């Protein structure tokens, strides 16, 4: 039992201490920790166009390095985070943003989940409404009532009125 606890504790320590593996090199970093922190925020938002599914902060590609340096230059020159992002976006387009902006050509992207939910709700509504209008059985006719009463009373049906059955 103690051994299991120990292993769990060790795994927990490993998980907690695993910092994300940034590709940011020490020589790129800004002296001012506040500015460097802002540069990291911007870098996380920027797609590395060489490896595509990494941010420039995570990528070792040459272009990612150049973009990190450029972002730090813009921020050191007094750009806000949004201005630094816009500077890169003006050159590489919306694709360079890892978080797609909400605009006319991304309406389907952002609205898609809501649309699917709506479609599912409509489908469910139609399905259950269709069920409720299932035909109600017609009341028994006078002849059927008479036969039912006869059967329930334990009597036997006269042969002549028997609808189905075999002669024995």
């Amino acid at each position: 039992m103690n051994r299991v606890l120990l292993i769990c504790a060790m795994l927990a320590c490993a998980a907690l201490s695993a910092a994300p593996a940034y590709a940011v090199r020490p020589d790129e970093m800004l002296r001012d920790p506040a500015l460097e922190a802002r540069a990291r925020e911007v870098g996380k938002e920027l797609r590395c166009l060489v490896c595509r599914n990494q941010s420039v902060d995570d990528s070792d590609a040459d272009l990612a390095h150049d973009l990190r340096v450029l972002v730090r230059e813009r921020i050191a020159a007094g750009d806000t985070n949004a201005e630094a992002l816009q500077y890169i976006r003006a050159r590489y387009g919306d694709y360079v943003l890892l978080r797609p902006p909400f605009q006319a050509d991304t309406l389907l992207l952002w609205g898609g989940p809501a649309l699917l939910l709506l479609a599912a709700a409509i489908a469910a509504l139609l399905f259950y409404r269709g069920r409720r209008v299932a035909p109600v059985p017609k009341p028994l006719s006078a002849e059927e009532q008479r036969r039912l009463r006869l059967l329930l009373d334990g009597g036997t049906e006269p042969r002549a009125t028997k609808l189905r059955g075999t002669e024995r």
Partner: protein
Amino acid sequence: MTARRWPYLVPVAVFALMAAAFYGGLGIDATVLPSALIDEPAPQFDLPPLPGHEHGFTTEDLKGHVSLVNTFASWCAPCRAEHPVLNALAQRKRVPIYGIDYKDKEEAASAWLGELGDPYDRIGADSGRVGIDWGVYGVPETFVIDRAGRIRYKHVGPLSQQDVDRTILPLVAKLER
């Protein structure tokens, strides 16, 4: 009963739409990104010449005529594949070709041009910053610039003879009209 049958066609219709969309998507090369700079003025830059060349390459060189701007590097294998196409195009003297030597060693670039031939009217040596201003994310890339110095078209990857004949030259002719 027949009136109740149409809901069963909905999945068929959805499938048909998705199949059409995916079939259309097969023709899209996801590695090629559209340029954000189409119809924008070419960026301002002033690149130094390679050793042994008289002129560098600046924004001013683009004014007043239709031209091509090709980014290349001696370390880039697809550029080597593209080079004969550029040489052939330069021999026709149809349109000036300007080169941006992207993140390259100057001696290596000079040696490369000495070995393979130099199709460029002007070459500027770029440490990478001008490439970013052009939205370059890999070499080779080729831009078509109009008379006003605006970027009108971007080709990503090596140009083939077919690209030149079917896309680049017709566009150059159209822009010159």
